[in-house]
């Protein structure tokens, strides 16, 4: 037994005196921001996860909140106040000490209107500001304007910054820090020499010497590089590539089961968008959105685009999230007759086989999606044909990721968008930044001063209420209602939930993919690249 244990330990850890190697993987786009509080899309989140330290970390395997920079915490005042006892002796990567003042500074930044941090939305359960106060060098209390349920989990998304005057790049508390950044090419992260964590044998973490994130939009090339041994991991694998890898190198393909990440489509309803009035009227109509939804064959999307490695989606919560999923909701069925009735009730009619609105405008719109994603391109083509059957002319426009983000978040020059969403927590509070109408991630109509519609006002109210109550049943009831409203109104047309598919080289040790972001490297500080296996593979 002891011999077996030693063998496992020897396989899992680098030999004493040796480094853990350089882990290489790809980002699908250039991070939009390297400021850890501004991270809003996957590439930025990846860099944040690998470099930032947080007070509390949600263990991606157990789904439980675990102490990180905070040794312990206590929630008081009915959920309005949380007091953290910080670990002592921790240093930032530049050697400067970490203390309560850094937490106070972080929360001052988080509350800043200039920054508009997506992480801040989860704390905005009521009007008012979040404030932090240092009680001592190792103790800090955070006061919220209203109670927040599951409060401690929100701190997983709040990267602790060094107090004013120190470099954000060089002073981090996570396992790695940015060493080199060639925009559009790669980001090299080096081991944080002052990282505080140690393994069970007392050895300093992380094992890895460095992480190299190559920016590579094309997934075929990413796969080619994986097969050549140039990268060690593909965190999210397309179903087609997964099938191919599973057939050729079964030991390198991993299926972690249904993920929490939906593929969804939405119409542009932004107040400041330059859309013509008649298109605004279409996209703002619930009947129109429901008709589009009923015209899409979700089962075909899952079967053809995802080769069966996905399931039709009903709403914003995956069935895999067993507690929070509203089981009364079912994915909308393909029903072109119902779709036509809904369109007729809104004044649409057919001229020949083409659908026109009451003003005679042909119903034609474009769907933008990120280029280089073959699965999404297939989804778009399937949707194009489905909608063509009811006389809608859909144009598909793949765009490079920065251009797409520019259009959906700044210029609002688009009709509809097909994209995926990254859920970082099972708890509904993790989705506050999507559902609050004031949020920048409220994609169909972001940054509203006051809710544009009655149902958005109701969602705002319900999301704040669920966050403010500590009674789990009431929270569930409120969030079920949010899901019901979203299902009825369909600001997002949820299409499928894909499986979490990943690829890992045999040279990786401690690779334990999970369904939640960041699937493959949630335990990056414990991953090891074995040089012997890497060489033999080549």
């Amino acid at each position, binding site marked *: 037994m002891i011999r077996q244990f030693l063998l496992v330990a020897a396989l899992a850890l680098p030999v004493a005196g040796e480094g853990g190697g350089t882990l290489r993987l790809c980002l699908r786009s250039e991070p939009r921001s390297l400021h850890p509080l501004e991270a809003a899309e996957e590439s930025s989140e990846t860099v944040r996860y690998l470099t930032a330290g947080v007070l509390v970390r949600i263990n991606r395997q157990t789904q439980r909140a675990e102490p990180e920079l905070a040794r312990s915490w206590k929630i008081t005042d009915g959920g309005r106040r949380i007091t953290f006892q910080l670990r002592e002796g921790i240093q930032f990567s530049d050697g400067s000490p970490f203390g309560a003042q850094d937490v106070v500074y972080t929360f001052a930044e988080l509350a800043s209107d200039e920054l508009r941090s997506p992480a801040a939305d989860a704390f905005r359960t009521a009007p008012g500001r979040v404030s932090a106060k240092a009680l001592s060098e190792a103790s800090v209390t955070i006061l919220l304007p209203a109670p927040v349920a599951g409060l401690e989990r929100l701190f997983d998304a709040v990267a602790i910054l060094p107090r004013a005057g120190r470099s954000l790049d060089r002073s981090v508390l996570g396992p790695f820090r940015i060493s080199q950044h060639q925009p559009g090419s790669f980001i090299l992260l080096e081991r944080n020499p002052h990282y505080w964590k140690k393994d069970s044998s007392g050895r300093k973490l992380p094992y890895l010497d460095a992480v190299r994130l190559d920016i590579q939009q094309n997934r*075929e090339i990413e796969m080619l590089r994986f097969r050549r041994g140039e990268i060690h991991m593909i965190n999210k694998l397309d179903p087609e590539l997964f099938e191919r890898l599973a057939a050729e190198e079964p030991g390198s393909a991993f299926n972690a089961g249904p993920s929490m990440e939906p593929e969804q489509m939405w119409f542009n309803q932004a107040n400041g968008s330059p859309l013509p009035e008649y298109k605004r009227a279409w996209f703002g109509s619930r009947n129109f959105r429901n008709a589009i939804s009923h015209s899409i064959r979700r089962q075909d999307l899952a079967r*053809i685009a995802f080769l069966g490695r996905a399931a039709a989606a009903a709403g914003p919560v995956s069935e895999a999230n067993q507690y929070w999923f509203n089981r009364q909701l079912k994915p909308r069925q393909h029903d072109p007759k119902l779709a036509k009735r809904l369109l007729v009730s809104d004044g649409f009619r057919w001229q020949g086989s083409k659908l026109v609105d009451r003003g005679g405008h042909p119903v*034609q719109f474009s769907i933008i999606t990120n280029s280089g994603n073959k699965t999404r391109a297939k989804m778009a083509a399937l949707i194009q*044909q489905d909608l063509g059957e009811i006389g809608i002319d859909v*144009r598909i426009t793949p765009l*490079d990721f920065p*251009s797409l983000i520019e259009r959906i978040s700044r210029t609002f020059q688009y009709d509809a968008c097909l994209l995926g969403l990254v859920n970082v927590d099972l708890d509904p509070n993790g989705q506050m930044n999507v559902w609050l109408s004031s949020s920048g991630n409220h994609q169909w109509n972001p940054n509203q001063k006051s809710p544009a519609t009655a149902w958005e006002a109701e969602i705002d109210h319900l999301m704040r209420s669920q966050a403010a109550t500590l009674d789990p049943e009431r929270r569930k009831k409120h969030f079920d209602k949010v899901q019901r409203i979203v299902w009825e109104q369909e600001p997002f047309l949820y299409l499928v939930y894909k499986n979490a598919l990943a690829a890992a080289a045999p040279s990786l040790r401690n690779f334990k993919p999970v369904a939640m972001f960041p699937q493959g490297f949630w335990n990056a500080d414990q991953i090891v690249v074995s040089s012997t296996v890497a060489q033999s593979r080549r």
Partner: protein
Amino acid sequence: MSLAQRIAWLLIAVIVTAAALASWIVPASYDRQFRDEIQAPPSKAHPLGTDELGRDRLSRLLHGTQVSLLLAPAAAFLATLLAALAGTLAGWRGGWLDHALESVCDLTMSLPWMFLLLTVRAALPLDVAPMTSVAITFFLLGALGWAGPARVVRAGARALRDSDYMLMARAQGYRGWRLPVWHLLPGLRPVLTAQFWTSVPLFILAEANLSLLGLGVVEPMPSWGGLLKEMESLPAIGRNPWILAPAVVLLMTLASLYVLMGAKEEEA
């Protein structure tokens, strides 16, 4: 007419006729998805099988041939025309005009065209019709692809400018624009022809890559470039060798045209 030329004519005739009669040869539309027959092998209903969305590969190949066979040579013609104008002028006149045109060529070739193309994409409406998008793409390729060929043409023009037959033309009293147009340009025809045929496959492949920027041939319209992208995966070719069909047709077309153009040169 040699045997090679006869075969070349036959192949071109077959390919052009098949492309022109695409809708008659394959009743299935190029965008119709047979969703219960995805990635189907060749059969009577689908002689080249179906793609990953269940679309008939033969129909897509023939319709893609229409698009690429018309527009890639048009773009190559535009690039060659611009190259002929700039290269001949620079090589013939020499002096400051030569320096200026050479600098423009250098500048054109060193500019980051990716950013220009991104700007063009940003300026275009998103709901541009697929055929318009295709036409814009090939126009851009033609308008941007002249600089390299222009340098080759310029070198040829400089060499011919001082040749004996140009001296003879001058001695016979030819002056002004007649010299380059009647005597120099015909001498540059082999160079221009070579540049034209080199550009055609380059533009076909460039079109496929431009789809990454949201330009190029967009779904559901097929093109050779788009069809060739299916060959990115070697294992897929091993399993479904019929996906090589677009590459075979492209090679046959280019080889045939090369043989025929070579014959014309010999006749000239």
